[in-house]
């Protein structure tokens, strides 16, 4: 009977097994890289919107307050996206004929809302509440980034759980005066006069924030 396997079959089997192990390790490395990549987290990726709204123009150049459009941020769980009427408070007076704003006018005429695409979206099992974060002084820029420099809106933070927990475990350095919540540039905060360097530590005591409780599962998953 002819031989089934050649003399090198054992070696080849071992090489194949070794390749399998290498492939497995590689797969784990690739998966790990993928989980943190902007492809998975969507950081910096622009969503397609019905109107190419520029935060850079409206916030950075015109200085419109965030809460003018995202009105429920301080009082509700969701900050909310603006209705057509909000756009029209200005655009019934300025740029009334601009082709770029045609969908807004069409929306007003038909009564059908603009379908804004959420950029900062969390999974459905996360119960995030804007109002508590704002009333304790977590500024918009912490989660949403420098929107005043974004011609088109994109996600600024990965919104992974480790990112949420980084702050929940040690909230003090992230706290700012609630009155200045919409301020974009905080680069000089620590050097500014007064008690800024210890502001966070102080306010955690004032507000009674206990980091140990902030990391309990049911704080965010109910």
């Amino acid at each position, binding site marked *: 009977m002819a031989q089934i396997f050649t003399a090198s079959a054992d070696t080849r089997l071992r090489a194949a097994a070794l390749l399998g192990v290498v492939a497995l390790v590689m797969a784990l490395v690739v998966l790990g890289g993928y*989980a943190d990549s902007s492809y998975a987290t969507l950081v910096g990726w622009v969503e397609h919107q019905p109107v190419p709204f520029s935060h850079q123009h409206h916030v950075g150049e015109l200085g419109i307050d965030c809460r003018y459009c995202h009105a429920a941020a301080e009082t509700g769980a969701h900050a909310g996206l603006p209705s057509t009427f909000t756009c029209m408070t200005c655009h019934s007076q300025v740029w009334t004929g601009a082709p770029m704003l045609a969908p807004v006018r069409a929306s007003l005429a038909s009564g059908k809302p603009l379908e804004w695409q959420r950029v900062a979206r969390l999974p459905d099992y996360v119960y995030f509440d804007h109002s508590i974060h704002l009333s304790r002084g977590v500024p918009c820029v912490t989660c949403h980034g420098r929107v005043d420099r974004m011609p088109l809106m994109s996600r600024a933070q990965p919104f992974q759980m480790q990112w949420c927990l980084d702050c929940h475990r040690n909230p003090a350095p992230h706290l700012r005066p609630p009155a200045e919540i919409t301020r974009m540039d905080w680069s000089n905060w620590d050097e500014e006069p007064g008690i800024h360097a210890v502001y966070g530590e102080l306010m955690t005591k004032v507000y009674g924030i206990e980091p140990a409780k902030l990391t309990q599962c049911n704080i965010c998953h109910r």
Partner: protein
Amino acid sequence: MSETASDTRITAEITRIPLHHPHMRNWWLLFGLSLLLLGCFFVAAGALFLNGVGMWGNNIPVNWGLAISHYVWFLGIGHAGTLISALLLITNAHWRNSLNRFAEAMTLFAVVCAGLYPILHLGRPWLFYWMAPYPNTMTLYPQFKSPLSWDFFAVLTYLTVSLLFWYIGIVPDLASVRDRAKTRRAQVLYGLAALGWRGSGRHWARWQQAYRLTAAIAVPLVVSVHSEISLLFAAGPIPGWTSTVFPAYFVMGAAFSGFAVVLMIAVTLRHALSLRDIVTERHLDLLARFLLATGLMTAYGYVYEVFDALYGGEKQDLATLHDRFTGLYAYSYWGAVIFNFVPLQLLWFRGIRARPAVLFLIATSVVVGMWYERYMLLMTALYRDYLVSSWGEYHASLWEWLLFAGMIGVFLAPFLLFVRFLPVISAFEVKEALRETGDLRHA
């Protein structure tokens, strides 16, 4: 040592099965049935993935339901395979050699079924890997105080060791099948599976080392894994789950149900594959004795549980005991007692132990009885705990029964493939036993 006539006969008798299966028609019938059941599994699991566990009957207070009672039941069945294979290997009981291979396969597939249940019981089954400690973007680590974590490690360890033990054991026989295979494809496939086994002295020495080492790892696992199962009950503040007899009681019950299934499989295979002179009446007799012995030990657990409640005198334990005897789920208690221990008493008689058909029926009764026991332990304790406000009933939904039918398919389909394509009995170990004792009947 040269190959004797009886050696050749045994190898031929065992290796003919994967190469020229004797009862292809019956095999196809059974395999068709098991594929149907497997289909049920995919339907039930698919529906569960789409709709969530809300479609099952379990809810507070009985949030474990059939899924967890089946988990314990399947895992328990698996343990007998390891006991027969590993424990009897280490204690040099050569009669095991006719039984160990298919008992190990039974263990393997039972553990797979068992492991699927807690996963399907999760709210989001596709995230089951969160139970593994791995670096992740959530900076979460498994909660080692949670029984769910214990389950994960227990099942994973047991599955790995069972698979290794079974595969290491089968390698020399795969080489025998390879050498007897006629078609090119069979030669290559069995050859690859045999990992280049040539039967040299060095191969055998290494093999002995690996096999006995894995056996030595596997035996304590039987005790630790099923003790873990019993302690995950004890971790909950539920009356009726706090008896100190639990770990021993569970391990014995596991061995009991497992020996029953091994007996059922042994009788079936012996008949279906004409293996009467390899799986002899003596083997069935020994299995029946094991069944009787583990059954009596399990019965001791029952007695001790009652004693524990009465002696402790805790009001709630007594109430649970009362519920077991007369409550809503009393049928499961009496079902367990009757199916487990009444037909079992027939095994005291030598004449009965020599009759395969009767043995099969007694073993079936034990499997049913042990199913009732797992169900009873969960239901009677959970449906009424300390607070009257949290009392509630549990009735399994059709989907849970469909999943159970499907899970039988998950067990049967690969087992039948094993019966069809792999040597179901360890030919070389039978030969070894034969050579050492001269006669298989007294091996």
